[in-house]
């Protein structure tokens, strides 16, 4: 058993002529909560897709449990994914299934468990996220925070080795944010999984992460423990952590001469 459950080695990725990642190196030790942070559009979610084998790198490799993801057959990738759970940004619950059926879905698909055992497991998972009482509701009847929690219960349904969280705090009220924050850490420690969080919410992420990677301009711009990064004087890290308007990440999108744009306008 390798010490790092996920290893990203010299990874490059791009599409439509746009380079998103260039020579990225990351390691994800077992049992830890690792965060990948960076501005919108820097390719954080794509890194999760690369780990899950949904897209292939143009250079380098991602290894999960010692296996190179993009070299696996379709069946091999599916075998690897059975070790993973993923929480999507908006939950991605199946809208035609109830909360109960959503959590039962992976169990029904991948196990031959009897209905009575599925029933108990689903209620245990829902209880872990505080939503046992909502098992009969449909996804349309849930708030954003509740949807995220049901999706979390579904992600851990088969006790995966890795749980990936794509922007778990985005669009949540402070109470829901605190609940999700607490659940990620608690479930990680209780289940002994490795958690990979992709987020740009500094406060919540720093609260629960053991180690943080900052991604910018396609590379790992900085890395370290939340304590180290909070004190960092690196311009990009400082701007990001303190939410500065301008800095290495410019306020203005690249544009031509302002005067020329205004005066040269032709209707």
């Amino acid at each position, binding site marked *: 058993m390798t010490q790092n459950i996920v290893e990203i080695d010299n990874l490059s990725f791009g599409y439509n002529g746009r380079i998103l990642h260039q020579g990225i190196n990351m390691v994800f030790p077992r049992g830890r909560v690792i965060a990948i942070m960076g501005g919108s559009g820097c390719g954080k979610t794509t890194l999760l897709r690369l780990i*899950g084998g*949904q897209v292939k790198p143009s250079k380098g490799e991602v290894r999960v449990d010692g296996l190179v993801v993009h070299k696996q057959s379709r069946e091999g990738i599916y075998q690897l*994914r059975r070790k993973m759970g*993923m929480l999507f940004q908006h939950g991605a619950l199946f809208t035609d299934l109830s909360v109960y059926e959503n959590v039962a879905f*992976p169990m029904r698909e*991948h196990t031959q468990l009897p209905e009575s055992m599925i029933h108990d497991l689903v209620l245990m998972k829902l209880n872990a996220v505080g939503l046992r009482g909502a098992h009969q509701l449909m996804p349309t009847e849930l708030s954003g925070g509740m949807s995220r929690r049901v999706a979390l219960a579904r992600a851990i349904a088969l006790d995966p080795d890795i749980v990936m969280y794509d922007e778990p705090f985005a669009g949540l009220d402070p109470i829901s944010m605190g609940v999700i924050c607490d659940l990620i850490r608690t479930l990680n420690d209780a289940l002994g999984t490795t958690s990979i969080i992709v987020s740009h919410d500094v406060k919540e992420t720093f609260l629960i992460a053991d180690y943080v990677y900052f991604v910018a301009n396609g590379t790992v711009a900085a890395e370290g423990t939340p304590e180290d990064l909070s004190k960092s004087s690196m311009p990009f890290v400082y701007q990001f952590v303190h939410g500065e308007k301008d800095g290495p990440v410019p306020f203005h999108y690249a544009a031509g001469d302002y005067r020329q744009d205004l005066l040269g306008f032709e209707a």
Partner: protein
Amino acid sequence: MIRSNLLVSLVRTLRNIGHHFSDRIWRLGAGARLFWLTLISSGESFRRFHLTIREVYFTGVLSLIIIIVSAFFVGMVLALQGYNTLQKYGSSEATGVLVALSLVRELGPVVTALLFAGRAGTAITAEIGLMKATEQLSAMEMMAVSPIARVIAPRFWAGVIAMPILAALFSMIGILGGYLVAVPLIGVDSGAFWSQMQANVDWHDDIVNGVIKSVVFGVACTMIALFEGYDAPPTAEGVSRATTRTVVTSSLVVLGLDFVLTSFMITL
């Protein structure tokens, strides 16, 4: 300057035509690939047949009202028009045959397919498109569950099963509508209406060929609806355009296939 602008405009037009053409070819290939993947992933649809049955309900049972009402009116209009023309030649007793042959050979499969594309096809496209837009298909992929086996294939087989049944119902209800207009309303002899129909409708040439058509239309309409949804850009506009394309493409393909199939059936 003017010549240069003309040249630029010409190049742009040619580029657009080329892009449009290559895009169509690409989509045709992608559609064929999805069709193949659906066929080889169909085991799940039969092993867990309840998945397919559930979709038969959504595509077939929920389309019943529109099919029955349309069939009834089509049959009544056919009887009126048929009687009006046939009586000029003293063959008003053949009204039943005319209604039955028109429905079983052509209108049953074709109109059912057009209605199916409008009612069930659009629902399939919108559902799959929204599942894609809300990352439900990605979530399934990440759970090591193939969306093609779990979502696409059951809907495909449901469409293939539902279409011939709906087309048969359309023909039956249409004949009933034609009977109600021709016999009680106009006064065509009831015995002549049914016996002429019985004598002149051939099992193989009319009924079996009609069933073959409806199965082919079922495959085409369902596959188009599934492909458009699966290929839709994950935005509100993308899903809306895909839904429109489902109706337009299905209608044209059904009418085109009808001509091709009829040609073969008449020749053979």
